[in-house]
């Protein structure tokens, strides 16, 4: 989802731009951390070893590329997207 789609889904299209910016930043922060929790949980012990080796090599980009290469058996971006949609539902359902 783009930032604009996030705002739309949150029903905040009429909010001032800076509020929208804060909402998007918060949403992406929450979703990013949740996605990290899920992805790191899904690594097998062998993958965990590779993961650590890549980290120790100090090349962050290499780690990102590796995580994007479907190592967890699921598309990382798909996990992020699903987490994002879930979070938007969560926010909308919690407004009293």
């Amino acid at each position, binding site marked *: 989802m783009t930032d604009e789609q996030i705002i739309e889904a949150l029903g905040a299209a009429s909010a001032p731009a*800076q509020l929208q910016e804060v909402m998007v930043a918060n949403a992406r922060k929450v979703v990013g951390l949740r996605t990290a929790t899920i992805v790191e949980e899904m690594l097998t012990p062998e993958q965990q070893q590779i993961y650590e080796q890549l980290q120790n090599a100090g090349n962050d980009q290499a*780690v990102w590329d590796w995580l994007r290469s479907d190592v967890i058996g699921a598309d990382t971006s798909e996990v992020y997207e699903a987490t994002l949609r879930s979070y938007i539902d969560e926010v909308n359902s919690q407004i009293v």
Partner: protein
Amino acid sequence: MSSEEFHLDKGPKSDTSAEIEGNELADKQPRRVRTNEEGQTERLVKYANGDFEWVPTAERETSQELDVHSEVLEEVVSAIEVSEKDNNRQDQEITELRQTLEARDEEVLELRSELDELRRMVEELRGGAATESEAEDIVDAEIIEDEEAHDNERVFTVSSAGEVTPPAGKEVELYSAPAAEVGKEVELYTGPKDEAETALEAAAEEEGFSPELSAEVAEALKDNAADYAKLTAKARKGYLGQLLHNSKYLVKVPGLKKLADKINDWSDQKLDTARESYQGALADMQRDIQDQFEAQYAEEERGDEYENNLRLAKQLALMQSHADLEDAITAERHEQSGKAGWLTKQLTNKGSLKGKLAIAGTAAAVGVGVGLLGGGKWGGMLAGGTVGGVMAGQVNRRRANSEGEDGRTLAESQSKEDRDAFTQELADKYENEEEANVEDLIKYVQERTASERQGNRSRLKTAIGVGAAAGGLSGGIVEAMQGTVGAAPVEAPQPEAPAPEVVPEVVPEPVAEVLVPDPSIGNYDYPWNWAADTFGAEGATDTLKQLGELAAQDGHSIQWNGDGLNEWVSVDGVSDTQSVLDILSRYTTKL
């Protein structure tokens, strides 16, 4: 024998002779056909009992027979097709079952492998011990021994007063607060200030930003969030289960279905209870916000816009609380597991989690933003109440010489805070068995007191500047902070929209003519792709950031958003690729 001998039309014959003749004919030419006196075609038919007769062969009957045969044939074909479909479906089911079985086989193999590994470890550890429980005791003893040895290896010592003694031979220079003259107000942080920020400070002081959110509600929210965060770190499976099983989207992601199935027994009573309590506190917070809104406006003043702003305020407070909770969860994981995953670190801007988490930059922006929604008093309420006085922390003008309750000046207190942070970070490093790098630790302390707050300042500045401009609030930030419920709503920013005209403090300086954009920028979907093609994939992000810094020096407003996979940059408030590259690519010659 000629055919004439059997021609029945040769003349009348007796019944007996005709019968004999017919039988002979039927024996020798059983498919004989003739034309009778009426011109009809007849076929000689011989029955099993030896009788024969000439039977008219009507074309119509033949056709009907053919039709019947065709129908039968169609039924047969249809039956075959159905059968083939069934076969295909069964084949597919068999294939799926085989795949499932193969997957399970793999799981079983993995589990067996793990089991074998565990058995081998137990055998190794047992080393003469009679039972597995004795082996477990050996493991426990080894762990304790390792921990003790590790403790003894610590080379830094930390006194109860927070003073750190470095190992012999290493010089450690701790950060010290700037010298302050007694009675003189000083700036503790020397980051650039601009009109917007100064106006914000003035507005903050004028409004007071006193917390109006019920202290009881704020305290309950804080406590419940802390309890829930602690439990999520302890009950990792339960937390994952909540994430996966409460989402209608996540379980549809193929790989995640397997994980969700794996942790079917995720339910954790304590965690569920903590979650419910936290959600209850969130609901109370929203009701409190609503009470505050209602107290500010009479019933007849509450229209659609009021309702919309109330909803936005609740939503904003909810999302800020969620972000704070995720920070707390990450911090708890860091504390309880001794380390946080690389990905998590990436998504929290790397570095010290504790230090980073202590600073909630967006929180202040929430207060400012809600102020724009409905007036400074609401902004103050949220800034002071919901986000715990972070706004006050953003107002960086400090009275360095004023003495606090502990008898220290503010400068001294802050110096001590930094030393404490250093100490804590040091302890964390050792706890987490990470390499203790003195330089890093010093840098951390210094960054905490300078760069990070400057970053928050920059973030606020951008948010305020862009927001004020987008809202058509030409009167400046003070007016923006004191805006009314009738502040003009703005449309969501469009991806292809041209750079908005921002308030003077963030309007970029004109770019020198010699700086021209790279003509190839139109070929790229994202700035990173352009940077990777132009400078190489390794370090592309760093190069973009360098270009951003150069552009910032030229007066452009550069804002990095998100983290890791989702990090993106906006230039002068616009984040579409072409606009960003149009500016950044001009500075490649200055690298």
